[in-house]
């Protein structure tokens, strides 16, 4: 009745040779019942006391969020001149951070949608918080282009609506495509996340003891009763949303790639950019999921649900997408050389040996060389090593955007227009502050919403153990 390992014995035996016997390569540790998974996950959201580690994390990230609010207020009052960007480097931290954040978001959609379509059951334990990560990352991402507008309070001019100017947005510009792509992505990610949450809100409504949370979760659950016909529609809707989100996620980062590729700046004007941006987005997103999952599982004792199997699989996805990104870097150099275009070639040389060479080589080390350690099974099964590698990849992917944006802009066609770019303290305040915003939202999510999809875990229990037997 109870299979030794849902992935077949091969993995399990290999896993045992390397790791401690209690943590094998299962999707779900044995001995779980419908009731036990329900109680364990819902208890996190319904607990009266905030765990100490949660309080420390929330206070730290809220402090950073204050930095973000302060920096944003300062930018709104003084204008974007307080940032370091100026012609010729008119795009800098704001666009770097925008692309970085939106790329991070993409892994969430990939895990929840693409892995669902491929029937990868290991996604169950990580899809919920990966989706939340998407949502919060998109929220952080969206703020940057809006602030970069200079007059953010008229951001709605980006939207097509009948107005007294008699003007329309330029629909032939990738920047307007971006507006539609990012707002659609934010909406669909939210719907996907919320639809996934409805049955779990019903769990919290039914298990909560306090009237206030009963009312709040009751409203959020919309009167969900778990009826068979509702489940059928629900599953259909969820699958359809997954099918819609999959091309969407590819299109969003493709359009982000178009922002660069459609321009005529050397180093940007390449057909390679859209696909290689998508691979990079998935790479950085999985790194961020790993960065979040590792502390989360130890903080709440979720090792039974987010197992080494999950970390191992995520490491493999990172390895694969990392190699795609590496191929992208190689092709960039090759195309620059093969084009015979002196400006393209100069950008390549300037990246590797110019004033920002340190960033370039750090990026190569972070994104190409260090992730190769994950080729070794012993590294993939060493949780602290994975955590460090995932942090390094996050940094590397940020540097990648820095290299693409700043180095291309600071020396393009006319040497008389060349200028160095240095970020100001407000750039850094805004950047680290947005990390605070992201984590503050994430900590609130972890505290008040089930971090793992409870009903999908029950399905998994049903498939692997038959439900009630201890």
């Amino acid at each position, binding site marked *: 009745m109870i299979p030794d390992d849902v992935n077949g014995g091969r993995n399990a035996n290999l896993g045992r040779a390397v790791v401690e016997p209690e943590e094998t390569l299962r999707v779900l540790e044995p001995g779980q019942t419908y009731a036990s998974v329900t109680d364990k996950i819902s208890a996190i959201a319904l607990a009266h006391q905030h765990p100490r580690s949660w309080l420390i994390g929330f206070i730290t990230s809220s402090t950073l969020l204050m930095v973000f609010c302060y920096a944003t207020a300062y930018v709104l009052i003084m204008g974007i001149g307080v940032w370091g960007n100026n012609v010729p480097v008119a795009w800098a931290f704001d666009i770097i951070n925008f692309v970085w954040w939106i790329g991070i978001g993409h892994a969430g959609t990939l895990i929840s949608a693409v892995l669902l379509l491929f029937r990868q059951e290991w996604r169950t334990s990580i899809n919920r918080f990966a989706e939340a990560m998407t949502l919060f990352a998109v929220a952080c991402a969206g703020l940057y282009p809006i602030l970069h507008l200079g007059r953010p309070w008229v951001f709605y001019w980006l939207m097509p609506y009948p107005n007294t100017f008699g003007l329309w947005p330029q629909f032939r510009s990738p920047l307007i*495509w971006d507006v539609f792509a990012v707002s659609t992505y934010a909406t*669909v990610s939210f*719907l996907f996340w919320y639809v996934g949450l409805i049955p779990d809100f019903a*769990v919290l409504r*039914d298990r909560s003891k306090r009237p206030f949370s009963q009312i709040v979760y009751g409203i959020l659950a919309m009167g969900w009763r*778990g009826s*068979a016909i509702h*489940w*059928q529609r629900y599953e259909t809707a969820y699958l359809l949303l997954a099918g819609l989100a999959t091309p969407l996620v590819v299109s969003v980062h493709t359009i982000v790639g178009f922002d660069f590729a459609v321009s005529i700046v050397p180093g940007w004007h390449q057909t390679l950019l859209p696909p290689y941006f998508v691979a990079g987005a998935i790479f950085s997103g999985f790194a961020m999921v790993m960065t979040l999952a590792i502390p989360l599982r130890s903080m709440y004792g979720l090792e039974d649900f987010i197992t080494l199997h999950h970390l191992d699989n995520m490491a493999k996805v990172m390895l694969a997408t990392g190699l795609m990104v590496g191929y992208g870097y190689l092709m960039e150099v090759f195309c620059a050389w093969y084009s015979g275009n002196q400006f393209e070639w100069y950008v390549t040389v300037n990246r590797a040996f110019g004033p920002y060479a340190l960033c370039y080589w750090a990026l190569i080390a972070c994104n190409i060389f260090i992730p190769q350690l994950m080729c070794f099974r012993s590294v993939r099964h060493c949780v602290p090593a994975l955590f460090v590698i995932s942090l390094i990849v996050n940094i590397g992917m940020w540097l990648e955007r820095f290299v693409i944006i700043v180095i291309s802009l600071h020396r393009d066609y006319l040497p008389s227009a060349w200028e160095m770019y240095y970020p100001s303290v407000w750039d850094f305040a805004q950047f680290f502050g947005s990390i605070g915003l992201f984590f503050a939202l994430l900590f609130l999510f972890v505290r008040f919403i089930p971090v793992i999809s409870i009903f999908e875990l029950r399905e998994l229990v049903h498939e692997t153990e038959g439900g009630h037997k201890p």
Partner: protein
Amino acid sequence: MSGSTSTPPHVYGLLAQFDQPETLRAAASQAYAQGYRRMEAYSPFPIKDMVSVMGHPRSRLPILTLVGGVLGGVTGYVMQYYACVISYPLNVGGRPLNSWPAFIPIIFELTILGAALFTVFGMLGLSGLPMPYHALFNVPEFKRASRDQFFLCIQAADRSFDLLQTREFLNASHALAVYEVPR
């Protein structure tokens, strides 16, 4: 079977509790064979074939998704055509005003947006959600439908429903308990 003469008006139906999805499915298919039609199963997670066992029709949701997608895409194209060709024609180097290849990204995004919105609101609308009150919530044990128990409710509105006979039938189908659901 006799009519529902013995059913008091304040009864919504009878709710049987099971602890395994398989027993629930067996009970539901027996009930269907007995001629019960207005019934519904409740479970903490979706059960395979549960809907077909009770004779419910297939969901029409995918059609709604298609309609939403087509509407979104058409809106995207019409909006851009109107803006670029009719309302504000702008000659850029003699290129055609109806430059449809440049319109594709927005058409695509709005197709997805329309389809997603129709899917979610269609799913909620067809299911009658949000529904803050439902008679089943009057049964305290029903809370466990979101935890580890499985329920089958035969509604009093069913033509074959009879308070005593239906209760007997449910007891015979290995229900752990049978509750009367007040309205």
